[in-house]
């Protein structure tokens, strides 16, 4: 390990630690892709196995899911702006855009929880059938990731507020932005292959 610091380039890439952490996180994301792929495959295999519980076509509604999609996609955009502000060295703008990002993420979560409660009231629970077990596990795992991401980002914003932009804090910020965009990508697959297909079948 060397502590040599480059003088140019994005702050997060200037130390070898920074480069290695970012590469490690990319590999971690590859593992996350496998994790979600397995959940998607499970969902696909168990599709339609609803027994006496309501079918997805009966419960899924375009309105709320579109709002959720809009919130999360926008949050990915604002997260991108936050990283852009970080590259420009503006701590204040970075924090503002990240707070907006997290607020959008929290909004997404709120709708998701509302949606889950609604389904449970309609009789579609984790225990009701194989299909709903798979549905709640897949979307719930994504929701859990968003929740953890919000908590993690809050911790990080405290550190950035305290320490400003250093190779370490900007590396952490860059990594969480990767994570956040990744969750967005997963959501796009959930939106299309779970909700859109679920509505028409």
């Amino acid at each position, binding site marked *: *390990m*060397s*502590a040599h610091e480059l003088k140019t380039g994005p702050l997060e890439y200037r130390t*070898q630690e920074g*480069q*290695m*952490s970012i*590469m*490690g996180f990319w*590999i*971690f994301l*590859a*593992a*996350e892709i*496998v*994790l979600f792929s*397995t*959940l998607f495959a*499970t969902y696909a*295999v*168990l599709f339609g*196995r*609803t*027994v006496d519980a309501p079918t997805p076509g009966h419960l899924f509604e375009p309105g709320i899911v579109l709002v959720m999609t809009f919130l999360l996609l926008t949050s990915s955009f604002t997260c991108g702006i936050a990283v852009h502000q970080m590259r420009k060295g503006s701590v204040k703008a970075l924090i503002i855009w990240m707070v907006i990002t997290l607020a959008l993420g929290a909004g997404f979560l709120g709708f998701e929880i509302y949606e889950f409660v609604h389904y449970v009231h309609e009789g579609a629970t*984790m*225990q*009701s*059938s*194989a*299909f709903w*077990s*798979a549905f*709640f*596990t897949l979307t719930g795992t994504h929701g859990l990731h968003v929740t953890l991401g919000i908590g*993690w980002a809050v*911790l*990080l914003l405290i*550190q950035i507020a305290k*320490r400003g932009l250093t190779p*370490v804090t900007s590396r952490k910020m860059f990594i969480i932005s990767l994570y956040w965009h990744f969750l967005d990508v997963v959501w796009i697959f959930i939106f299309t292959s779970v909700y859109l297909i679920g509505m028409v079948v």
Partner: protein
Amino acid sequence: MRLDEFFVTGEPLIYAGMVSIALVTSAALFLLTYFKKWGWLWREWLTTVDHKKIGIMYILAALAMLFRGGVDALMMRVQLAFPDMNFLDAQHYDEIFTTHGTVMIIFMAMPFLIGLMNIIVPLQIGARDFAFPYVNALSFWSFMFGAMLFNISFVIGGSPDAGWTSYTPLAGAAMSPGPGQNFYLLGLQLSGIGTLATGINLMVTILKMRAPGMKLFQMPIFTWSTLVTCFIIVFAFPILTVALALMTIDRIFGSQFFTLTGEGLPMMWANLFWMWGHPEVYIVILPAFGIFSEVIATFAKKRLFGYNAMVWSMILIAGLSFLVWVHHFFTMGAGAFVNSVFSISTMLIAVPTGVKIFNWLATLYKAKIKFSVAMMWALAFIPSFVIGGVTGVMLGMAAADYQFHNSYFLVAHFHYVLIAGTVFACFAGLVFWYPKMFGHKLNERLGKWSFWFFVIGFHVCFFPQYFLGLDGMPRRIFITNIAEWLPLNIISTVGAFGMGAGFAIFVFNIYYSYRYSEREKTGDSWDGRTLEWATPTPVPYYNFATVPYVDKYDAFLAMKEKGETTYDEERLEPIHMPSYTGQPFIMMGFLFIASFALVFEWIPLAILGLAGGLIMMIVRSFDYDEGYYVEVDEIKRIERKARGL
């Protein structure tokens, strides 16, 4: 929950187990207190982030697990030796074959190899530690706590009894109530976190921390095998994570993934399990190939034949390993087309594996072979593994598999590949790198005794099992009252005890060599070819005072020719090292509590444990410890002492 439900009762063997656990634990506590070693234990081991120490802990734990799994095996063989034996009852037998398989694969083979990778890979590539030393400690403690969780099941709560594959619906809540199966799920989940983290960690280490000049195709072959293995880990372990999580949710929260009610699909477990499980067997065999390649090249005193082909065959095997999982359940009835596809992909694996076998033989061809103990393990591996591989191809033929399936033919096959492959490699690797780890060699004479006992015992034990399988003996039965099976079962049991004797001699050799072996004077114990032998023995905690420039395969050989060392006083600079920390131990301790509580479905305690783990992560996030520098004078002092300058 009443106390007699919490502890396992009514079984004399388990009472004996409890007594021995109590005795060993109190002896350890007494010794640590008596010799005032608690501080030493905490400062030097529990808080270490040094890859060499973590590797040693991995190997010690794996040896303990090998003992535990081996005792399980001997108990099974005793029960099977004669018709109508009453040594174990059906329940106990089921528990023992389950824990034997799980312990040997998850808590013996993988940690043993990961331990060797820990110690050797950074040394082979000229690195001073892992890319993420903190994460490395985290990985170790997650493995250790996972292994502990799984192992206490036999005295607390009861062991899992649905086989190491834990097929549903048998392993589901309806047919396996109680904590037993939960121990399996959470023990594997907890240690799985560590395996995935190690995979990422080693991959970054190998990709980013190689000595200047060292290209990928100049890396030592063991490092290559580690890199390929890490790819498999990263792409296979999340599948296990999900499979275990789904079954846990099924059992604890009543979902319907693998159940017979609610339109669940029990066979989906088999699919998910083997989509991880088949790559998993390559996770434990590819590093073994790497070890044998190093050992064979060193003791044949020749460059490894067909290095490039060796690397590419490993990459091919890794790719194919993801495409064969259905061959574990041809009899599920997926249909002729599906079975044919997986039959062909299975047999294809024999091609790159064959390439490797021929390359080893070609390395040995016309070589002046030095028959040291490590080399003997490697030489015994080749023919034994070929027997296992060829019978594997037989099993891979879907139509024939309908006959072999679930019989002792299969049991013999996978023990031939896993023992002759992985276990021989663990022994070979440990003997080979032992001087680098502990500063003295293992006694060769005792090593040969243990080798012959183990290898002959192995063949005597498992070769007859092929024929038991052909005679129709199914696996996982505990009564063998068919006259034709009797002689072969007795022979097999005798062989098992031969292996036990070999292992006992091996362990005794560790003690004997610690007392009597000559201490190593140079770092180069075997006239080595790769960079780990360029370091002095014992290896300084920063590994390399100066990192050599590498532009050849067999880098140390080239250095020796040029008279270079890893200590160039002109080029000394302060070395940056990570600080030791107790956080990984504490974090995983909390997750252990959470997992233990989940096993018994005590949800509030589980939440508390999880919260503790999260708090430790927050502590870590705010921890800006940047390590420290080893000053040049300190390096000079250490190196001069180690090199006798």
